[in-house]
């Protein structure tokens, strides 16, 4: 698997560290239902078979956080964005 880093070009997956699903937002700790929302954000995952939005860190490259859409059935990289792009 190779990941096309927007800054470094196509690089081996070995240079990257994986964090997991990119769609979990940190909940508002002051919200009335904060405990439930933190439980959902920390523990529950959609875990789809198919396109999956996830966060990767180019630790042996430019040290950028990347937001990547990857097909979990084929490992095909469908889209790469820099980490803070929404």
């Amino acid at each position, binding site marked *: 698997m190779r990941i096309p880093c927007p800054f470094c070009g196509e690089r081996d997956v*070995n240079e990257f560290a994986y964090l*997991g*699903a990119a769609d979990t937002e940190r909940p508002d700790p002051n919200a009335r239902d904060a405990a439930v929302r933190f439980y959902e954000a920390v523990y*529950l*995952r959609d*875990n789809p078979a198919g396109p999956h939005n996830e966060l990767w860190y180019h630790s042996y490259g430019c040290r950028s956080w990347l937001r990547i859409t990857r097909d*979990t059935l084929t*490992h095909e990289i469908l889209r790469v964005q820099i980490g803070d792009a929404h």
Partner: protein
Amino acid sequence: MRYSLFSLLRQTLSQHRGWAPAWRDAVPKPAYDVIIVGGGGHGLATAYYLAKVHGIRNVAVLEKRYIGSGNAGRNTTIIRSNYLLPGNNPFYEWSMRLWEGLEQDLNYNTMVSQRGVLNLYHSVAQRDAYARRGNAMLMHGVDAELLDTEGVRKMLPFLDFENARFPVLGGLLQRRGGTARHDAVVWGYARAASDLGVDIVQNCEVTGFIREGERIVGVETSRGPIRAARTGLAVAGNTSRVASMAGLRLPIESHVLQAFVSEAIKPFIDCVVTLGAGHFYLSQSDKGGLVFGGDIDGYNSYAQRGNLPTVEHVCESGMALIPALGRVRMLRSWGGIMDMSMDGSPIIDRTPIEGLYLNAGWCYGGFKATPASGWCFAHLLATEQAYPVARAYRLDRFASGHLIDENGRGAQPNLH
């Protein structure tokens, strides 16, 4: 037909023409008392113990392909019960005790071989951690021995004891651990369950659930609807996909774990050995191949194949421990899809949906758990109560904070 020396002799005289198929390949009925989704070791063991222990014989095991075609056929066949935490240890020890009597119970040669599982340590701090784990095992009635360098050297003289970075200082040995034949476990449970009246339905993929109000009363499948009062999921690797059809979101990620086998060589290693400095485990199959593996690749995957960096990492770990491996050719590698739970421990519990029960989250420790997982899931399906040794494997433990995190690594599934 009961397998015995007598039946073997009789078949020999008739040139082995009289062997019947080991189990019935059943056509699904419209309704059952219990449906088990997933024809791997766990699902078949569940059906067997439902029929044998609880007398519930109107049971179907639904398998989307052929039985044992998933993780039951993709593991490294290691059995052990060398766990630290009180939530885990009694469960895996119960599994070990079931392994010890499995062949007589099933009347099937599952090739259980208690050749010993040796976890090596490479630093003084790691020795202390292993001593603690060994003491926890002893206090739970599990066998454990702490070996020093010389104790390990007597067993495995070919290790790289003087490795500059990770010298082998000793190991924690569980002599009762070992290996079992994965396919035989599947076939043995299938045969024994089928003999008791369980329907094993292959090529039958679950495509949805049948609901009545809030309750689940059966499944839609590629072979038509099948109804049941209780439906149990034992589909590790694909739990999130199947549960999502019922609207459940679970504390599970699916990851790929690779395993490897070398060409067959003469007897080389007579136990299971694991590297403590990385993640590498090795044993030798009865055919002579060295069976080994390491870490999961570390990213979500349903692909049943991994990538080369993990292959390189596993082989490097093997070479660091056993330099002689450099002369052996690797024959095959394959990947299985692991249900990685958020604390590294499994789930055997009811779900918030009436009629739906869950057996999931086995991470990469599912094979050794097969007998106890089936035993405890059957108990849950039959009685609605958790079997005592599986009481900690609740689905709501993530919300309540009662996690069973054997490695202390937090909610990061690719680190468990």
